[in-house]
């Protein structure tokens, strides 16, 4: 059911270190999915936290970027910092899906903020 599984980043076969790394497509897609799920989950949690703590406007968005950065670091650590054996570039881990979680973050931020502060 829930495909959200934070804890599995599968290894890809890279057949040539030096010139053309060829990657196993399915594994790469599965890795991307893991990143996506992780980011979505973290943005939801981050939104709730921001709302509860009462962040407003700029502080809230800064908090969002902070949460995304933490997620990136966490993903990099999960990949053992040898990013190239799991993804084809650093950008995947760091930038991908950055703004995708923004809407979820704002929704849950608004929700929690209202629940707690303007109840």
């Amino acid at each position: 059911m829930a495909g959200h599984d934070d804890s599995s980043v599968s290894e890809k076969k890279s057949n040539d270190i030096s010139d053309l790394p060829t990657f196993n497509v399915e594994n790469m897609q599965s890795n991307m999915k893991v990143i996506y799920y992780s980011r979505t989950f973290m943005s939801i949690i981050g939104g709730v936290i921001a709302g509860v703590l009462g962040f407003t406007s700029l502080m809230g968005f800064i908090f969002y970027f902070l949460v995304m950065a933490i997620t990136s670091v966490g993903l990099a650590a999960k990949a053992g910092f040898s990013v190239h054996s799991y993804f084809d570039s650093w950008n995947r881990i760091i930038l991908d899906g950055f703004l995708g979680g923004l809407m979820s973050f704002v929704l849950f931020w608004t929700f929690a903020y209202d629940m707690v502060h303007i109840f």
Partner: protein
Amino acid sequence: MAEDLVLDTAIRDWVLIPLSVVMVLIGVLRYFVSKLMRSSQTPDLKIVKEGQVIVRARNLRAAANFIPLKAFRARKAYFTNEENGLLHVPKGQAASNPQAQMFSDPNMAMDMMKKNLSMIIPQTLTFAWVNFFFSGFVAAKIPFPLTQRFRSMLQNGIDLSTVDVSYVSSRSWYFLNLFGLRGLFSLILGEENATDDTQRMMQMSGFGFDPSKSLGAEKDGLDIIQHDWAMPKFEQRAEAVLRKLSRFFPSHSSLSVIARNAKGSGGEEDGRALETVLKLYTAIKDRDLDVLSDVIGEECRCVCNFVSAFQPWEGKAQALVFFSYLLRKLGEHIDFVVQPTFHDGMTVGVHWRLEWKETKITLGEGFSFYMCHVYHGKVLIKNVEMFMEPLLHIEPLRLVSQYEHYITFQLNELWN
């Protein structure tokens, strides 16, 4: 304008939460309904065939560098050949395929309609419901400020113009939910969720054109590709990998003396005999014939069972000859790993293994007896008996048997 409005808690209970819950439930419902309704489509054989051809061509393109040039050319010709290549679409057919298929095929049209409906209807219904029930009051406060221009969008039912733009009506809460719950749905519904309408619409528009245009695209792609055979570089890569591996196994010296296995009564002489034998093996490891001759006594007698001549070598010279041939045969990569098992007085027993230096694969095992004596204050080896375990039946270890034959041959030559 800066003060916080105090909003009735009833709004929370009866507006925000129910709206969110309803939207989540509708999303789940839509997912299951679309799953149920989708199952009735039987795929068209021709389309499936073309799809598979495209996949094969794509794989060929991706892995082109792993097959030799001729094989690649042959496969490429198979695909792009003018007469009967699989990817070659005669001009006449090309244009008419996509549109005709889309509209003349009743199944597909029905499918598209169903999918559209399943997306649009719940949204419309929910929106109407929100407007009817939840209009005319402030529903929520968004935590960040927006400019005045958003006022008309967000505060639709509220007719006061002095209220802060942050206080929004329930319509905007509906839209916020609509976008924000996409992420949540992807988490709880697994990979395939039908609620992401924008993605769906993109897929819809792309689908009809797939068959023939992409054939042409694949053909062009194959024509363009430059073949660069990666195989010759693989040896270097394999070398690099093996080097890395060997770094991880700490290179123990081939004379790891495991003292606890050596039984025997103590005494300094034992130590010296053992030391001499180990010196012998160090010399073998270092391929050092001088040190070798230092430890072998003048009347040294050598017997080994892996040389089929079975003649013992008498005297230092012959022993040295034997050892030097052994060293030459061992070459650069094979080493003795020695484990003294027994020493008593001047007798030392040693269990040895032949190993391939880099990867520590055992090539052969055996056992040697050494008897030493003291001569002019130095301890020298006077008797050597080597026994090697029969390994000829193990295929990879035939390596050693080659050496055996060679040694035999050479030594025979020497004596006759």
